[in-house]
């Protein structure tokens, strides 16, 4: 789960990029004065067009961050953009603040990177209960609950019987972390964990059998 800190950082950077984009759009010539002469001489197109393009890029980055759409990509492009700004403008009394913005963009990108290598983890249910009793996984990974016992199991989020501890809704009773039916011996049930935390669960048919999935 993305933390409150992530959203504060995301919205703050979104407002900054939107605001700067609009300011550049209103007066591109004034902002072009920040470029070092050597950098201005390298431009293949007129300065005003470059600054308008910069303004549009800043606004797009700001909108993406504001609505939380591909935040890792927006943060990556924003970070590259800031590196270019620091390079072509030099570190001055004004652009020194871009170092902080760059660090914030990198932090945002790292925190929101998708996890394409998410794997499956296995919890086995036997007649003695869930094993391993505590399983540590990464956010976005799927846990397969395999029933290798002689009876039916029904894994579901704590607390019994409402199953509301896992922070989603839309399950048959409470959260979606709920098999919603008995899983027969030799069958299995899978659930993908998208929220960081320690999530306790139990066998709904025999609530004494419990376990914990720690999502990091």
């Amino acid at each position, binding site marked *: 789960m993305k933390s409150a800190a992530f959203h504060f950082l995301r919205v703050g950077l979104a407002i900054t990029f939107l605001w700067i984009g609009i300011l550049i759009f209103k007066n591109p010539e004034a902002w072009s004065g920040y470029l070092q002469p050597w950098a201005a001489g390298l431009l293949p197109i007129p300065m005003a067009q470059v600054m308008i393009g910069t303004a549009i890029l800043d606004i797009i980055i700001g909108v993406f961050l*504001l609505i939380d759409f591909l935040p890792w990509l927006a943060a990556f492009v924003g970070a590259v953009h800031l590196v270019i700004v620091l390079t072509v403008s030099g570190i001055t009394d004004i652009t020194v603040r871009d170092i902080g913005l760059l660090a914030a963009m990198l932090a945002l990108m790292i925190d929101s990177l998708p996890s394409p290598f998410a794997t499956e983890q296995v919890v086995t249910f036997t007649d003695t209960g869930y094993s391993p009793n505590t399983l540590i996984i990464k956010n976005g990974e799927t846990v397969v609950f395999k029933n290798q016992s002689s009876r039916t199991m029904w894994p579901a989020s704590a607390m019994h019987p409402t199953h509301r501890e896992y*922070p989603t809704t839309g399950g048959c009773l409470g959260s979606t972390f709920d098999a919603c039916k008995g899983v027969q011996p030799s069958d299995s049930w899978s659930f993908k964990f998208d929220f960081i935390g320690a999530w306790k669960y139990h066998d709904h048919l025999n609530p004494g059998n419990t376990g914990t999935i720690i999502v990091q």
Partner: protein
Amino acid sequence: MTALALLFTLSAVGISETVYLIRKRLAAEKPICPIGENCALVLTSRWSKIFIILANGNYTFS
């Protein structure tokens, strides 16, 4: 300029918050509460069910 900047900032925060809450509702997830708790009340209130939110008929927020 300061008043305009303040209006712009508050508007942006409002738009962001609205998009965030709509997406949380469509995904049937509870929103984060930076201050206090029970933020989900804003999604469970009967006043939240207007326009496109109401059209999301296959979803029940319990």
